[in-house]
């Protein structure tokens, strides 16, 4: 039996004259997500995107899995394609949905007839189909208000489609329609979630990671690569820049007051990141900060960090509880990698008693005395570039 995926646009439908350009990006993203599975024909009409496999051997389970992670889709269905005759519909429904129908006690049929040349009207299609189902599955009852299963029959311009309950899509808007931003990623639980959330709003991501060998290990860097590959399943492929941060951290340790280590480190991270972001046409930075989670994420500390760069900073987790963040990290499958115990640069020289209410004036003074400028330049000019793609997982 021939099958097809029917995808319902999400928020895009609300766009006015731009809608086409959003849809084009979405189709491109779908094509990219599916390309290693074989060839598909991807077309759109009537706020539906049709994903048609061009070969019988394509793994549609995997295709559904990938589609479920593409932003911009509200819901999707895997449907059987049949001829546009009522006979063909009646023949297909009991076969294609046999398993689903056997698993429930009540159902209803919903028909959509956008091709008005089809001789039967929607209520007539429902009636015919419902009758056929009842005769083949005597244990079933019709319940039009609260059915366990809704059988959908869609008569469209290109063919007739049969499917059961649609699956929930990833929501959001297509990655790439929202411009570019750079995510600061450490390897913890929060930053991959922040990356995911901004990708969901259409942002194309570039990743920046700070490495301080030998205080941090190759495994810590590898961990970030693996995390980003997971994020890539939603956010598409991206470039990761690894910043050599050792000398800067050593200088902070040597020349700055201990209680300000973390704040000054984060300010320098923001400075370096905004330089990298600018060079890559990013309009914003993204961080995984959540208000009050740790000493460097109090309102005072964030004010000091924020002052370090003029660039717009997105903090999508700012109002979330740790548990809410963890829930998302489970869903996007990053949690188990995030909790691997390798030291990252944020934990290298943690002060015993970090300042929770730092005063910007003093922080700036403490940062001015040691001249970080040459080291910052050196770091920015010695980035390691890694290409991240979900397919390398």
């Amino acid at each position: 039996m021939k099958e097809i995926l029917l995808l319902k646009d999400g928020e895009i439908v609300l766009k006015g004259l731009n809608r086409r350009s959003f849809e084009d990006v979405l189709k491109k993203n779908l094509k990219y997500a599916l390309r290693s599975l074989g060839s598909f024909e991807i077309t759109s009409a009537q706020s539906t995107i049709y994903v048609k496999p061009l070969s019988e051997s394509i793994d549609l389970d995997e295709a559904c899995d990938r589609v479920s992670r593409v932003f911009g889709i509200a819901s999707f269905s895997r449907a059987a394609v049949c001829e546009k005759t009522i006979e063909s519909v009646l023949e297909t429904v009991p076969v294609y949905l046999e398993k689903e129908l056997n698993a429930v006690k009540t159902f209803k049929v919903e028909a959509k007839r956008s091709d008005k040349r089809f001789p039967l009207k929607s209520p007539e299609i429902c009636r015919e189909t419902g009758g056929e189902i009842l005769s083949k599955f005597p244990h079933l009852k019709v319940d039009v208000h609260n059915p366990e299963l809704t059988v959908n029959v869609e008569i469209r311009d290109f063919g007739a489609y049969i499917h059961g309950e649609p699956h929930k899509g990833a929501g959001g808007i297509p990655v790439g329609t929202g411009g570019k931003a750079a995510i600061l990623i450490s390897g913890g639980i929060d930053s991959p979630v922040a990356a995911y959330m901004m990708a969901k709003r259409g942002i194309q991501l570039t990743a920046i990671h700070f490495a301080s060998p030998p205080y941090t290990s190759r495994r810590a860097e590898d961990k970030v690569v693996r995390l980003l590959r997971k994020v890539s399943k939603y956010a598409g492929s991206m470039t990761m820049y690894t910043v050599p941060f050792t000398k800067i951290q050593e200088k902070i340790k040597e020349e700055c007051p201990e209680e300000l280590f973390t704040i000054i480190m984060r300010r320098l991270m923001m400075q370096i990141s905004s330089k990298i972001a600018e060079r890559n046409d990013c309009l914003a930075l993204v961080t995984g900060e959540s208000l009050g989670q740790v000493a460097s994420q109090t309102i005072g500390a964030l004010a000091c960090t924020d002052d370090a760069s003029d660039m717009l900073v997105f903090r999508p987790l700012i109002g979330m509880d740790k548990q809410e963040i963890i829930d998302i990290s489970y869903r996007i499958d990053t949690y188990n990698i995030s909790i691997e115990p390798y030291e990252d640069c944020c934990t290298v020289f943690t002060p015993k008693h970090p300042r929770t209410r730092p005063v910007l004036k003093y922080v700036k003074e403490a940062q001015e005395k040691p001249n970080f400028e040459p080291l910052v330049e050196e770091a920015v000019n010695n980035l390691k570039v890694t290409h991240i793609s979900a397919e390398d997982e």
Partner: protein
Amino acid sequence: MEHYLDNSATTVVSVNAAKKAYEIMTENYGNPSSLHLKGMYAEQELVKARRTVAKTLAASSDEIFFTSGGTEANNAALLGTAQAKKRRGNKIVVSSIEHSSIIETAKKLENDGFDVVYINPRSDGAIHKEDVLNQIDSSTILVSVMSVNNETGAVMQISDIFSAVKAKNSEVVCHTDAVQAFGKLTLNARKMNADLISVSGHKVHAPKGCGALYIKKGVRIVPFHYGGEQEGRIRPGTEALPLIAAFGTACDEFKIDENYRKIKLLNDYARKNLANIDGVVVNSAENALPYVLNISAGRVRSETMLHFLEEFDVFVSSGSACAKGKPSHVLQAMGIDKNRADSALRISFSKYNTTDDIDELCRGIEQGLKVLAHR
């Protein structure tokens, strides 16, 4: 040149052992349980390997049961004994410096309702007979004390401890995790008074994935794997013959006394040269097994120094490789303060090491202490 000084984590496979594994995989690949000739040839290899491993423990072949390694042998020993003896009593005594495959299994038994007592080492890092003996009473069913500690090289007087335990309560099953002693000290199951002994192949130049449990004749443990009749039903499933045969070959190559003397010289050399570096202290006791040398270098975190040494092609470990990053429970149990435990490094030798390796290690540590920021 590579300077591999992490031989307590694992060792390079000896050329002959690797050849043996290859031969079994590509030529003599039969199933030892098959009735045909090909099966018989395979079985002969199995018999030979078992005899060789038995010899290293001065045991007989039918007391050796191959497992997937030390962890499985330890699990089988503890869980199997607890199950077999649960009607006799409820108390299990283990040392607090055991490998995680004992500690975690003991915790599981604790959850199952057994009364588990953990014995701490004294300041020399060793478990002492008197401390064990205090915990032996009529309800005790099992004692497990390792032969040599994997982090410090501390050597336990297993024979003394077990004979004292047996004298107090002859019903107690005595198990020793001998993974770090195996192939390094001459072991004799009878003289050790052990009922169960765990050993592992990959610490003695055999491939990973193979070990053995010695079960003294007459001692019964309940298996926790079910299937065929292999390994006396203790460990059913088609035998991992390439690994087992290679394990046998590696055991055939043991030169315990000769290597011991060599490693002792190497250890002395390392202690002498490390002592010349300002900030280095030795955590291993003087009488520890020379194969393992635990030190603390300044106040540089173990993990940092370890990665710094990578640049010199020097590979050492921070505590036990199975504990990845966690502070050492062994050093803590010895009463070593947190800062010192945080900067602990384990250097562990094999017969392939030379003084060159130690020179490079010292050079690396010396430089690390100069350039790395201290905590």
